[in-house]
């Protein structure tokens, strides 16, 4: 079931280390801020200290005489931008940098200081006199905030299946709880960085992003350039986690600098600026109501989610997405509310929507299992749907039950005493929990070119991104299989906007989308008679094949199992074991896929126990905008973690693959929270499960 019948290579399904590994570990791989460049200048960003207000004055006179300073750009002299330039969901004010004296959030760029060296630019930026008038701000999120309004439904209409209220009223067992997740930050290891310069009339850039083509297209529109006047390259990217999916401030400002000063300009955000300027996962508050019969059959799911947003740009944290596809039930209602506040516009992060949504839904399912007296695993198996409960569409490959059963076997779930607070080891309480997950999968249009070279090798070109996950390596395997040759005959070029439109490394749609275009190009190349003494190139844009209609529910699935210890005297929660069983279609490269989902699970662990952007209640600014204050798991927090895949092939998707990018993260927080309940008997509906929320008065 793993491969098409006519496959003659083992390219797909074989573990291979990253192709660029030696370059990376030897320091030869160049990231956006690493390329040596003649006449390069450096821009340092100056940001707003107030959460809302107006720039009264920026006095650059003293700074302009400092050593090496080339100039200062602010709202009075910066190049004008097209206010209609769009991000994910239409015109995006987060890109309108240095265009007005208005300050919409703390950390907003108010000036760019450009100098000959990074140190001169930093010194001048530190010395720049910026006077702001602070206006009253509101950064306090609550679901019932009076400014709340319905969120956009572009990612899926609200579900209105059956009569939720009637089903809840007639359900013998009902769960009705609220769940809270805080602001969380991607803050990848490589900070957002860009180098921009002009080559004739053409804007060139090295940029750290998740989709060079999308970024180039947005950059062109923002600066009112033709698309062919812009080239963006992102050969190596040190992590993104969603935060580099769109045109970032680093490239906008570097471009402005290169225009104003007529030379290459590099802008690298500081760690603090990455936290303050780059969109975070918004805080969420979710109410989940589940109604069930005593045998565990779900009668109703009501999932109402609110999240914070900025008036500058639309965003949808689509929390109830999983509630529309995971379980069979007679009635489903979902609602999403956006609450505008004076914040950095939120953006995508590690399974946007689904991840906080899963924490709420899968915690509620565990609470339902508790109240029903049914094993949480069994409860999920009893509610396996035959068709999509909202869409009515049949499922593609759906091996959630296999994930649950195989994971349970490996984890030793069946020996679990379902009662909470029963297992003790010395002064520690021990508990286990699980969560199930679905993550939508599909392929979006991309352009791929393949050249059959005269020496029997092939050159594949596609503006795919490798943000550290190994997609370059995976695509070589996919191309080799599609061309029916060994991987050693494939050469690949990626991450260059000149290679044409391509989906970005986001939405867990990268590999399926790129594989689609590569497969189509390979098929046409194989079918096309050609003279082997001359190179021949085939280019395919799958936009011409894309219908936008989905005839089946295609999702990746996972079951996450967690074991935790809790010291009730100190509140310390430590994760002892994590096991993830995944159904992601065909696994292109088990070594890299395992690495990716394990990384995702660690992110979920961070979400469960550590990660939290904290705002000062008075100033509205983030207090912990660095890794000293914003904790992610240390190695010692992840003692035993394992992940594996159930055999699967998704016939509706290119190469049989489904997305693996985000599903590792999604279910982990709920699995850990459920394990903490099992250990202590106390529910934690507020993330992260900090020790001050767990510590108990000892008798």
């Amino acid at each position, binding site marked *: 079931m793993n491969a098409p019948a006519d496959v003659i290579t083992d390219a797909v399904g074989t573990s291979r280390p990253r192709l660029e590994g030696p370059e990376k570990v030897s320091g030869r791989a160049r990231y956006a801020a690493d390329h040596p460049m003649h006449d390069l200048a450096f821009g340092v960003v100056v940001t707003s200290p107030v959460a809302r207000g107006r720039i009264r004055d920026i006095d650059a006179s003293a700074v302009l005489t400092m050593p090496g300073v080339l100039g200062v750009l602010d709202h009075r002299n910066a190049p004008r931008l097209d206010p209609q330039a769009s991000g994910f969901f239409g015109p995006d004010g987060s890109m309108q940098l240095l265009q007005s004296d208005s300050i919409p959030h703390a950390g907003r760029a108010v000036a760019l200081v450009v100098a000959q060296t990074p140190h001169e630019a930093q010194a001048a930026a530190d010395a720049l006199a910026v006077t702001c008038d602070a206006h009253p701000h509101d950064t306090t999120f609550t679901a019932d905030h009076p400014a709340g309004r319905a969120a956009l439904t572009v990612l899926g209409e609200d579900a209105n299946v059956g009569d939720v209220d009637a089903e809840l009223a007639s359900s013998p067992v009902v769960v009705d709880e609220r769940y809270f997740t805080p602001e969380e930050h991607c803050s990848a290891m490589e900070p957002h960085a860009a180098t921009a310069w002009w080559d004739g009339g053409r804007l060139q850039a090295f940029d750290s992003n998740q989709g060079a083509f999308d970024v180039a297209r947005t950059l062109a529109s923002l600066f009112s350039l033709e698309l062919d006047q812009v080239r963006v390259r992102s050969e190596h990217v040190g992590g993104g986690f969603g935060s580099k999916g769109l045109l970032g401030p680093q490239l906008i400002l570097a471009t402005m600098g290169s225009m104003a000063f007529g030379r290459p300009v590099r802008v690298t955000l500081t760690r603090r600026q990455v936290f303050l300027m780059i969109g975070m996962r918004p805080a969420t508050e979710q109410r989940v109501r589940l109604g069930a019969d005593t045998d565990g059959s779900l009668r109703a799911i009501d999932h109402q989610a609110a999240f914070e947003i900025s008036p500058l740009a639309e965003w949808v944290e689509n929390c109830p997405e999983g509630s529309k596809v995971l379980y069979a039930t007679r009635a489903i209602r979902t609602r999403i509310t956006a609450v505008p506040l004076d914040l950095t516009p939120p953006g995508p992060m590690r399974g946007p929507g689904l991840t906080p949504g899963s924490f709420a839904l899968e915690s509620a399912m565990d609470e339902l299992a508790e109240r029903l007296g049914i094993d949480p695993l069994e409860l999920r198996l009893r509610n396996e749907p035959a068709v999509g409960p909202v869409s009515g569409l049949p499922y593609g490959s759906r091996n959630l039950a296999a994930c649950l059963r195989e994971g349970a076997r490996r984890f030793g779930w069946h020996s679990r005493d379902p009662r909470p607070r029963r297992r003790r080891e010395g002064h520690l309480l021990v508990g286990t929990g699980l969560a199930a997950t679905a993550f939508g999968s599909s392929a979006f249009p991309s352009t791929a070119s393949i050249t059959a070279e005269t020496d029997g090798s092939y050159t594949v070109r596609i503006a795919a991104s490798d943000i550290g996950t190994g997609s370059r390596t995976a695509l070589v395997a996919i191309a080799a299989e599609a061309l029916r040759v060994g991987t050693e005959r494939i050469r690949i070029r990626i991450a260059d906007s000149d290679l044409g439109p391509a989906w970005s490394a986001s939405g867990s749609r990268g590999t399926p989308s790129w594989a689609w275009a590569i497969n189509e190009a390979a098929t046409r190349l194989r079918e096309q008679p050609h003279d082997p003494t001359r190179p021949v190139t085939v280019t395919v844009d799958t936009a011409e094949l894309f219908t936008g209609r989905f005839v089946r529910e295609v999702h990746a699935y996972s079951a996450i199992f967690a074991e935790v210890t809790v010291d009730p005297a100190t509140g310390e929660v430590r994760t002892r074991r994590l096991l993830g069983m995944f159904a992601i279609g065909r696994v292109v490269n088990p070594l890299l896929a395992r690495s990716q989902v394990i990384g995702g699970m660690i992110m979920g662990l961070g979400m469960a126990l550590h990660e939290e952007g904290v705002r000062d209640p008075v100033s509205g600014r983030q*207090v912990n905008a660095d890794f000293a204050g914003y904790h992610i798991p240390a190695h010692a927090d992840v003692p035993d973690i394992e992940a594996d895949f159930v055999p699967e092939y998704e016939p509706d998707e290119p190469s049989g693959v489904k997305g693996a990018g985000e599903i590792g993260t999604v279910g982990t927080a709920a699995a850990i929270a459920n394990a903490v309940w099992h250990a202590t008997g106390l529910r934690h509906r507020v993330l992260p499960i900090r020790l001050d929320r767990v510590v108990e008065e000892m008798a």
Partner: protein
Amino acid sequence: MKEFGYRRVKHVQEALALTANDTGARYLGGGTNLVDLMKDEIEAPSQLVDVRFLPLSGVREAPDGGLAIGATTSNSDAAAHPEVRRRYPALSQAVLAGASGQLRNMATVGGNLLQRTRCAYFADPSEPCNKRLPGSGCPALPGEHHNHAIFDWSRHCVATHPSDMAVALAAFDAVVHYETLDGPAEIPLSEFYLPVGDTPHRETALPPGALITAVSLPKSAACPRSRYRKVRERASYAFATVSVAAALELHDGLVGRVGIALGGVASRPWRARVAEAALHGEPFTGAGLRDAAEAELAAAKPLRDNGYKVTLARNLIVAVLTELAER
């Protein structure tokens, strides 16, 4: 980072002379805290006097039968020393509970005593902070103070001292030895850190220009039955939420010497003298221990959002002393 001078010195007198002539000079040990703060210009010394190569390194027997740890001894070496581990095990445990292996290899014992608070407002030059900029205000008091002090804070500052090592030193009655141009002097650790009052920027009783040369541990405080327990938000590489260093001697069921110090609760290691007094000379019982912990925490003044530290500190005293008593 502001520009600064750098001098590496070979003799203590040379170091003292340099700082006597330059009030902006700072001694450089491992630099693991100072250099970080310089990057953000929280610290902006005119020059760094590098004292790492002074002949002050190593652990030696003190005249009273205790131990003297040279100021430039690395944290790693202090923690690994067999006599530290045998006689003052809680000190070794405390050092090893802090930072990372790399940082402990760089950090020095003298520098550790002088590290600055990890209060986020102190570390952010765009914020007011009375410790950094006297008179500018304390945003932590109305703001984010979930990990701040519960003892002896003032409206001018609610920050905590970050050191693990200093907490164990406090429990062992350590003495800080230093040198000035007037000659050598010493001060008990219990008097080394100043109360916050209205001068949170004045953190220690060291005279200007004084150079810490050693920390000594009296023989009378040696206690193999001692333990450091650190509670933190993740399993490693985090500062203490609350920690406790405790040393306990039992004679026929009666409490003999007992030393208890708490970390993460005040601007200095908090010696739990009330609890010690309640325990000393009494039979060791669970109820007595809980009462002693309760009595110590009765003086706590938690802030709006850190009342959990009172519970945590009480639980920790009980848990660690119970564990020591059961050994």
